[in-house]
């Protein structure tokens, strides 16, 4: 490796961003080149100094609340409880994360006519699961792990099946809440899109066929079977979500 090339790769090397081959070639050059060795040491020292002493600014208290209140959508009054404590609790990392989930819950429930509130809540849950880095509690494509995991924590047992052959691989599951009820959220993927399938105990027992709603860029399909309400939410195309729902319903039959 030429000296100039070595110099040009030095930063990437110190940052751990070089592939194995170039790392090897660079190491060979440095072993023979005192000038490069010196530069490498200086860069390491500088990187340490920067990482130790370059300050990360933290969001000031109240900013989260201010942003929340500036968001275009109104939040139903019973949910809107501007919580001044939320951003002020010292802003520890854990606090910030817990706050993230809560704030989103406050912020993301769109005020819509009550008839659509289930779909809205499901969308909110879907969005929240992705924004709060909390997609799954149990991350496995093994349906024989996800199903018992959910059953152990809920008093019902939703359909869980890996549809990988059909192009809808199972990603995992988590516990969630929809309409104030404990819900199972089973997570699938379609290409790069995430599908959240919520299931919870229905208020009324009758089965209903799937109905599709489209809002906020999401497709939502709701139906009832076996005493459970199912809601599938995703930003995949409607036809693909319909295919998915058919698979789930066939699996239950």
């Amino acid at each position, binding site marked *: 490796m030429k000296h100039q090339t070595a110099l040009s790769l030095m930063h990437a090397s110190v940052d751990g961003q070089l592939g194995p081959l170039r790392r090897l070639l660079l190491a060979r050059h440095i072993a023979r080149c005192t000038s490069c060795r010196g530069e490498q040491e200086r860069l390491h020292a500088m990187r340490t100094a920067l990482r130790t002493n370059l300050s990360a600014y933290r969001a000031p208290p109240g900013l989260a609340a201010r942003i929340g209140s*500036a968001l275009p959508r109104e939040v139903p009054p019973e949910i809107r409880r501007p919580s001044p404590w939320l951003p002020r609790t010292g802003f520890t990392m854990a606090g910030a994360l817990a706050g993230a989930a809560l704030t989103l819950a406050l912020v993301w429930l769109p005020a819509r006519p009550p008839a659509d509130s289930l779909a809205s809540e499901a969308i909110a849950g879907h969005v929240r699961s992705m924004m709060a880095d909390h997609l799954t509690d149990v991350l496995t494509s093994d349906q024989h792990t996800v199903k018992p995991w959910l059953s152990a924590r809920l008093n019902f047992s939703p359909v869980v099946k890996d549809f990988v052959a059909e192009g809808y691989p199972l990603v995992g599951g988590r516990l969630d809440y929809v309409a104030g009820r404990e819900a199972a959220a089973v997570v699938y993927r379609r290409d790069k899109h995430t599908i959240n399938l919520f299931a919870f105990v229905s208020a009324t027992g009758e089965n209903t066929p799937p109905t599709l709603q489209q809002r906020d860029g999401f497709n939502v399909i709701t139906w009832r079977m076996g005493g459970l309400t199912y809601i599938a939410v995703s930003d995949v195309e409607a036809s693909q979500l319909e295919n998915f729902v058919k698979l789930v319903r066939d699996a239950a039959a």
Partner: protein
Amino acid sequence: MPHLDAAFNLARWLTGNATDAEDVVQDAYLRAFRYFDAFRGENFRVWLLTIVRNSFLTWLQDNRSGRVLFRPDVNEIAETWADPAPGPEAMLVEQVDRETLATLVAQLPAEYREILVLREIEDLSYKEIAQVAAIPVGTVMSRLARARQSLRKAWIRQEKGGHRA
């Protein structure tokens, strides 16, 4: 509010003050909520930081103060890989205190500053930085090298100048 600290940190370093940073962050979150369906489930923090940067650029246009304009440097690549040949004082960079370091970084051109902040504070990979700053990975590499070299030179100048702030 997810990643609010990261968003604020980038905005604070880019705008140079807390008040403007808050405006930029607020605008960024409004955009993020509005365009959430454009998010394709990769890395949410990277996506959000990209929006923060775009909000900053919009803010720059609206508040054209001439202070911190991005100026793409055509000689950038050519100059970057000159042998640094530093004197022994270069090692002093290790002993820089927080306040001085913050001042020196704040004086870097914005296009170097943002990359330094994304790398050293947010610990993004070159690829992620490339996405946020909308530049090729090779440019990330050269700008980062330039940023560090400029910083080192500024530090040495400052030392020689006898600790003037």
